[in-house]
């Protein structure tokens, strides 16, 4: 494997340094002259700088006075907590304090610039970088980012990752996992947001065009992948996860993890980077690589990624989308349903989180994708979730099941509204004005459109399937020549036999089995209960029926009755107070909720 530091090309460094120092050719003959001249220039510049600095300082002091007192106090305490790696306090300030202050003071405008508040935090560059990360995230979430914001946000996040990856040894910093996830999540979000914005050269002003032509590296796919892969390598996360799967002891894992990976900060960053890679690969249209990246990550109910709801939902959404691109509908259905069930259960605890809105939106998309997947691969699936799908997409489902051109249009609409926003790897040629012009005159198909076409070709390939399946349902055996007379537009027996082969293939697929470890693995399964064999030209139809399931119902209700019984048994006996008429307390004792048991207790306390 390649040397990680070699892979982490110093693109940011180069970029920053090339901005700071103009490149000068070195000429040994006029060395002395040049040196003197430079010195003079420098002195002059220094004097001017001093003047400007003084002025700026004054201005800044004034501006700092404008910052509300509670914000200042917050920043000082926040800085303190981060210096002390005091996780509970950081978590609290990050999750609630920041949002409260945003609501109070900055719902319409930016937080104060980092330079402005730097005196408050002793000019601590690491804190200021973290602060800027929050600052830009707020700009993206609440305001319209300008091109400067986009560029500076990129430079800031690169500075942060540079600090984490290229310091001498692991940095003495610890942050709550929620923040680490949000940071990487935002990194990918801003990347995709920028790529979409950059992909369209129309409606850009001169200034923006010029900036884009000079900054090829900013938010490039390559640099984003670079950061994520570097975090993965530095933390040895794949090796750690593999060892944990093999059941190695905590000490052995620590040893494998090395000096970086054994620190929670790096381990968590590495872990979340894997999930961000999954996402980036899906966005760049490479579902196999996306699933391959996740080969060591556990996706089961208790996995680490489920600790953060946003991360859980994002992971499952993208895994499901990757499965869809592979035509593995049952796997996609399973993935979406499992996370949607989880989300419905968790919903009540999460309404406060600022990401609640975006999580809900992503879930909404999964219902739409479920409508697509269950049409293409009908079969039994979770009833509670499917009833929500039917509720939301009743009209669309009806059209999809009818088939024909109208259905194709509906497939298209649903896909466009619910699929990820695919990205092009390469931006338009901003650096070459003439090439840009021809690009504008003849724009290539955009990435989402390309993936839409691939998806639609999957749909078109199986468009006759549901008709012929419905026809077969009516028979136990039928000659192919007879089927010809029933189907519209088909000309001969050969076409019918070909259609039957397509039907056969559409009810077979590969799906991940229980004991298969990686997401890419799959066993051949039958997805539909209607099946058939062709003997010459005679089609024999066989239908597998399933009995109604009673046991689950009985088990659930017996357990529920047991719980109710236990609650009643363990509650204290109601002690009636004299003035309370017996008729009023009678219904309380039969009430199965805890309320019945709770009230007499208070009555007892009052009586004492």
């Amino acid at each position: 494997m390649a040397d990680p530091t070699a892979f982490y090309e110093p693109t940011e460094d180069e970029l920053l340094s090339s901005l700071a120092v103009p490149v000068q050719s070195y000429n040994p003959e006029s060395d002395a002259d040049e040196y003197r001249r430079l010195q003079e220039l420098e002195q002059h510049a220094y004097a001017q700088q001093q003047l400007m600095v003084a002025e700026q300082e004054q201005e800044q002091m004034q501006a700092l006075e404008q910052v509300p007192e509670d914000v200042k106090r917050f920043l000082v305490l926040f800085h303190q907590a981060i210096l002390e790696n005091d996780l509970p306090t950081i978590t609290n300030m990050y999750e609630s304090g920041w949002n409260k202050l945003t609501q109070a003071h900055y719902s319409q405008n930016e937080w104060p610039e980092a330079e402005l508040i730097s005196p408050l935090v002793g000019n601590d560059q690491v804190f200021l970088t973290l602060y800027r990360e929050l600052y830009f995230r707020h700009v993206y979430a609440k305001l319209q980012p300008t091109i400067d914001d986009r560029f500076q946000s990129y430079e800031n996040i690169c500075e942060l990752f540079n600090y984490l990856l290229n310091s001498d040894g692991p940095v003495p910093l610890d942050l709550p996992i929620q923040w680490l996830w949000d940071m990487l999540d935002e990194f990918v979000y801003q990347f995709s947001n920028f790529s979409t914005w950059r992909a369209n050269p129309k409606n850009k002003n001169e200034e923006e065009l010029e900036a884009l032509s000079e900054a090829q590296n900013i938010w490039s796919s390559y640099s984003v992948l670079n950061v994520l892969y570097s975090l993965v390598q530095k933390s040895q996360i794949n090796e750690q996860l593999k060892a944990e799967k093999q059941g190695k002891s905590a000490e052995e894992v620590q040893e494998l993890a090395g000096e970086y990976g054994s620190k929670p900060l790096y381990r968590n960053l590495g872990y979340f980077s894997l999930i961000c890679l999954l996402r980036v690969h899906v966005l760049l249209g490479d579902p196999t690589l996306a699933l391959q990246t996740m080969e060591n990550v556990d996706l089961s109910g208790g996995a680490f990624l489920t600790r953060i709801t946003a991360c859980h939902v994002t992971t499952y959404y993208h895994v499901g989308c990757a499965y869809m691109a592979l035509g593995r509908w049952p796997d996609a259905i399973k993935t979406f349903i499992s996370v949607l069930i989880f989300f419905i259960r968790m919903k009540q605890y999460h309404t406060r989180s600022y990401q609640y809105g975006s999580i809900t939106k992503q879930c909404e998309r999964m219902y739409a994708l479920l409508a697509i997947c269950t049409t293409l691969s009908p079969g039994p699936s979770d009833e509670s979730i499917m009833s929500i799908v039917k509720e939301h997409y009743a009209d669309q489902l009806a059209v999809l099941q009818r088939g024909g051109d109208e259905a194709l249009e509906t497939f298209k609409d649903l896909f466009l509204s619910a699929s990820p926003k695919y990205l092009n790897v390469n931006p338009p040629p901003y650096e070459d004005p003439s090439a840009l012009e021809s690009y504008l005159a003849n724009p290539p198909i955009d990435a989402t459109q390309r993936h839409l076409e691939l998806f639609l070709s999957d749909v078109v390939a199986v468009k006759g399937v549901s008709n012929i399946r419905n026809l077969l349902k009516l028979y136990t055996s039928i000659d192919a020549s007879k089927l010809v007379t029933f189907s519209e537009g088909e000309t001969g027996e050969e076409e019918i036999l070909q259609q039957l082969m397509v039907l056969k293939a559409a009810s077979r697929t590969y799906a991940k089995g229980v004991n298969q470890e990686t997401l890419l693995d799959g066993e051949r399964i039958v997805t539909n209960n209607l099946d058939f064999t062709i003997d010459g030209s005679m089609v024999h139809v066989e239908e597998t029926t399933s009995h109604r399931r009673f046991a689950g119902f009985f088990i659930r209700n017996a357990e529920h009755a047991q719980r109710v019984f236990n609650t009643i048994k363990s509650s204290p006996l109601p002690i009636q107070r004299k003035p309370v008429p017996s008729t009023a307390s009678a219904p309380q004792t039969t009430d199965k909720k805890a309320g019945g048991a709770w009230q007499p207790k208070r009555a007892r306390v009052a009586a004492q």
Partner: protein
Amino acid sequence: MAVAVPKKNLSDWHSPSTRPEVIHELIHGVDRYNPTNLPFMEEYLLSQIKEGQYDLFANLAILKLYQFNPQHSNPDIIVHILVKALSATVHGPDFGLSLGLLREPSAILHDIESDDEALTILIPFLTNLHELVRTCQFTKFWKEFNGESEAASILKTRYLPSHASPLDSLRFQFSLSIASCFSTISLTQLSRWLDLPSGQVSQYVEQIGWSVEGEKAVIPKNGDNDVKAGVVRENVQLSQLTKLVAAAAY
């Protein structure tokens, strides 16, 4: 030739046994983004072609490198990868996955300043062939394939000769589709679908483990062509009852 039975699982699809360890390391690490590996990867593709092997994931890694380094794109390699994907599976996602990593042919050619039109002609042709294959329109497929169009002749003169028995692998994939449906099938139908003259059909049929009875080919049972109606009964596991049993123990 192997017996025509569909693969039971996907392990050979994502990690074929013929893949060398070096390639495995390469496509599982960050080195897959290193364009200096391109000649090496392309050589691996050419050896797949010559030996009649197939490694989709390695081929996708080549297309990925082209995606990131458009100036290194090699149209001939792209066509070979698509031909490989086309002849490797009837219903698998391979061809679509390869297309997903490609841009329009004209953009690819523009970036390498090539005026070789073969790619522009062949990609729509191969895409059309793929549509015919996945909808099992095998007769039509052979008609297009054997046709006189420019694309068909470029494909057959310039690309197919370097592939080890491309026709056999197409026929083999088609027989897989047939085998999953039919328990017996007329030889005349087979000769149309497999594009074999009636004299050679029975010989081919026996090669892939089927037998001939009169005018029909008999396909051995493979789980797909001998389906039986079944009844799925509810299956209660002891573990589901633990709570009830525990409650009864009081």
